């Protein structure tokens, strides 16, 4: 059972991403999550939401982005839902350093920032990305 829960639903537009990021920062700070974990999750969620707006909704009328936060002891779970056609994430291997790639860092970065990254596609009904991050600073009494 989650000790804390919060949900934010916004239009799937690029200009909403800073709003999502700030909301997530504010909620996690309110829940006394460590600043390091807040920074990692804020960046990971930013990358996911940007992908949704720039790629998922690129050729269609943008739907929504639904962000659900939950805290289970020292575990933070972020669930991000969209209504874009199913996106199949690449294995997200990083570009080689010598390649000096001008892109391709986003999902690889997300995988590095969180402890668990799960993508579920629901065909034409959208996608669900689940991120899990352990906050080692939390001491269970």
């Amino acid at each position, binding site marked *: 059972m989650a000790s804390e829960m919060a949900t934010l639903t916004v239009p799937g537009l690029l200009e909403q991403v800073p709003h999502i990021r700030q909301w997530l920062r504010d909620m996690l700070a309110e829940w006394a999550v460590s600043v390091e974990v807040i*920074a990692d999750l804020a*960046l990971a969620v*930013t990358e996911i939401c*940007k992908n949704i707006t720039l790629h998922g909704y690129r050729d269609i009328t943008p739907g929504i982005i639904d962000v659900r936060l939950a805290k289970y002891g020292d575990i933070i779970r972020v669930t991000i839902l969209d209504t874009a056609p199913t996106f199949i994430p690449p294995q997200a291997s990083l570009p*080689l350093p010598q390649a*000096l790639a001008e892109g391709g*860092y986003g999902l690889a*970065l997300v995988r*590095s920032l969180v402890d668990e990254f799960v993508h579920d596609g629901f065909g034409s009904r959208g996608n669900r990305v689940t991120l899990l991050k352990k906050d080692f600073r939390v001491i269970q009494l």
Partner: protein
Amino acid sequence: MVLTFYDDRGVTVIALNGGLDETRGVELGQLFDRLMAEGRRQFVLDLKAVDSTDSAGLAMLVRCFKRVRSGVGNLALIALQPSIRRIFEMTRLDRSFDIYTDVTEAVQRLVGSQR
């Protein structure tokens, strides 16, 4: 983001401030274009006041780096905050860029590399 720059022994030191995202990266690219059009080729990017970045910001930084190198120039980074250095390590871009702790060291290396 505020972009300021000055010259140190023929090396242009550019200081960034705030978050480095795509929009800021575009501004930085435009500044590089202008400075290179003036004939400048040696650059140090001071990141000590940069507190956040994302994949788009990193991509823009790589683009600037390639632009400088294609003009037979050099670009070094200095003073990465721990959170920014960690992102460079995660993306392995710490292996692509020359990263120094301070401006003196970076300028010395760049001046030395021209001899």
